[in-house]
């Protein structure tokens, strides 16, 4: 770290302690409301203590979750291939990450290494995307600082189970990926990923005849579980650009950026 970095925002107005504010802006002195209360002051009721939102819309953040082996990393690679030339794109991965994964994205996804950040999850991939999102938020922010404004950040979860979902404090929309080889009963089992994800991807449809999976059963069960939420079928061996997923993302990005 550069020696000047860590104190660079000393004077940021949002970091001001109430006691540092101009006396006219300050809440009255310590006071209590009842016999059990310690003396305290309130943050200024008229002042939002949170940093202001950027005027330009920040990058759209899309979480990609799903069980181990369902094809999340392959989908991320396909999306990088499809969208990398059109959108300013970066990826945060929570998967147990090796240089092979990086090479996989580099080879297949035309995404330079500086656009990928890996986050360690302490054996708890669901915690890092749901209960304690701080490492992921830091990674997203660091990418934006290093690369400048971005249109899209894909946050890939570590392979987990059917109950893992992303916090809305981390992402704007989430995609849940299951594969036909995991069994055609997966949509019926439900779980928050299947029932509530903004897009359900049923992946590896090319394997269906080999594993005896009935796609019509999966389609019917997904509709029953998800109501009006969309579900797409995908085979990355036949559609290397993950067209239905890439189109869904393009629509979301377009809706955020004023023409």
């Amino acid at each position, binding site marked *: *770290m550069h020696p000047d*970095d*860590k*104190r*660079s*925002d*000393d*004077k*940021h107005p949002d*970091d*001001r*302690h*109430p*006691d*540092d504010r101009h006396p006219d802006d300050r809440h009255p002195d310590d006071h209590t409301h009842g016999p059990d209360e*310690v003396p*305290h002051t309130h*943050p200024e009721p008229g002042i939002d*203590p*949170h940093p202001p939102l950027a005027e330009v819309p920040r990058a759209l953040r899309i979480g990609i979750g799903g069980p181990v082996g369902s094809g999340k990393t392959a989908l991320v690679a396909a999306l990088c291939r499809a969208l990398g030339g059109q959108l300013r794109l970066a990826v945060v991965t929570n998967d*147990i*990450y*090796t*240089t092979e994964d990086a090479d996989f994205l580099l080879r297949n996804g035309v995404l330079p290494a500086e656009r990928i950040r890996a*986050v*360690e*999850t*302490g*054996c*708890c991939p669901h*915690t*890092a995307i749901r*209960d*304690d*999102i*701080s*490492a992921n*938020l*830091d990674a997203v922010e660091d990418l934006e600082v290093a690369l400048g404004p971005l249109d899209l950040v894909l946050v890939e979860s570590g392979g987990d189970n059917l109950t893992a979902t992303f916090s809305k404090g981390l992402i704007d929309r989430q995609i849940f990926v299951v594969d036909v080889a995991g069994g055609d009963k997966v949509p019926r089992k439900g779980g928050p990923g299947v029932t509530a994800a903004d897009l359900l991807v049923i992946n590896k449809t090319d394997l269906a005849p080999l594993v005896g999976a009935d796609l019509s059963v999966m389609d019917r069960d997904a509709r029953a579980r998800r109501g009006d939420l969309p579900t797409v079928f995908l085979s990355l061996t036949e559609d290397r650009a993950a067209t239905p997923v890439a189109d869904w993302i393009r629509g979301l990005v377009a809706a955020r950026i004023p023409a």
Partner: protein
Amino acid sequence: MSLATLLVLADGRLPAGGHAHSGGLETAVSSGRVRTVADVGRFLCGRLFTAGLVAAAFAAAACARPDRWAELDDGLDARTPSPALRKASRAQGRALLRAARAMWPLPAAGREPHHPVALGVVAAAARLDPAAAAVAAAHGSVTGPASAAVRLLGLDPYAVHALLAGLAPDCDRIAADAAARIDDPVDALPAAGAPLLDIGAELHATWEVRLFAS
């Protein structure tokens, strides 16, 4: 002072990034130095009386005088020879400030101060006293690796929590000492080192696959 506020700050479920840090335990497990509950007990004890002691002293001092955060931050840099551990400490300090900013109005403390400094500053903002900040620091220095031990080694969680209960009086003692030294110059504050944690952290940072950030 509100004891319930202290519990909020010291709760392992506080979303401040701690779950992804093993406090050096992942390296100790990988090298075979920690295998059993008894090994974990010795590891936690060693960590408490080195890293925990220093963290408690700096958290207490930062709580007493949040405006001294930069000087204390430099003092912790000097006490943390491993660049990987400095990075881990700053990452956790940054994450704690992020979580705390949503709960209390915070004064300036930089973008990513060392974790004990952030903890002291946050404790002051929450109107806790230096002894409370110190006990949260000491306690936190062992609860993180204890949880990591359960996850990495599949140990009996009751046995591991019994270790934490056994260390509680030591945490209290360390916190009381820390609170008594808040007026000491930074150079006079505790500087207990744990060379194996430093070396282990540097090795850990080179691994291709790791489950914990530190």
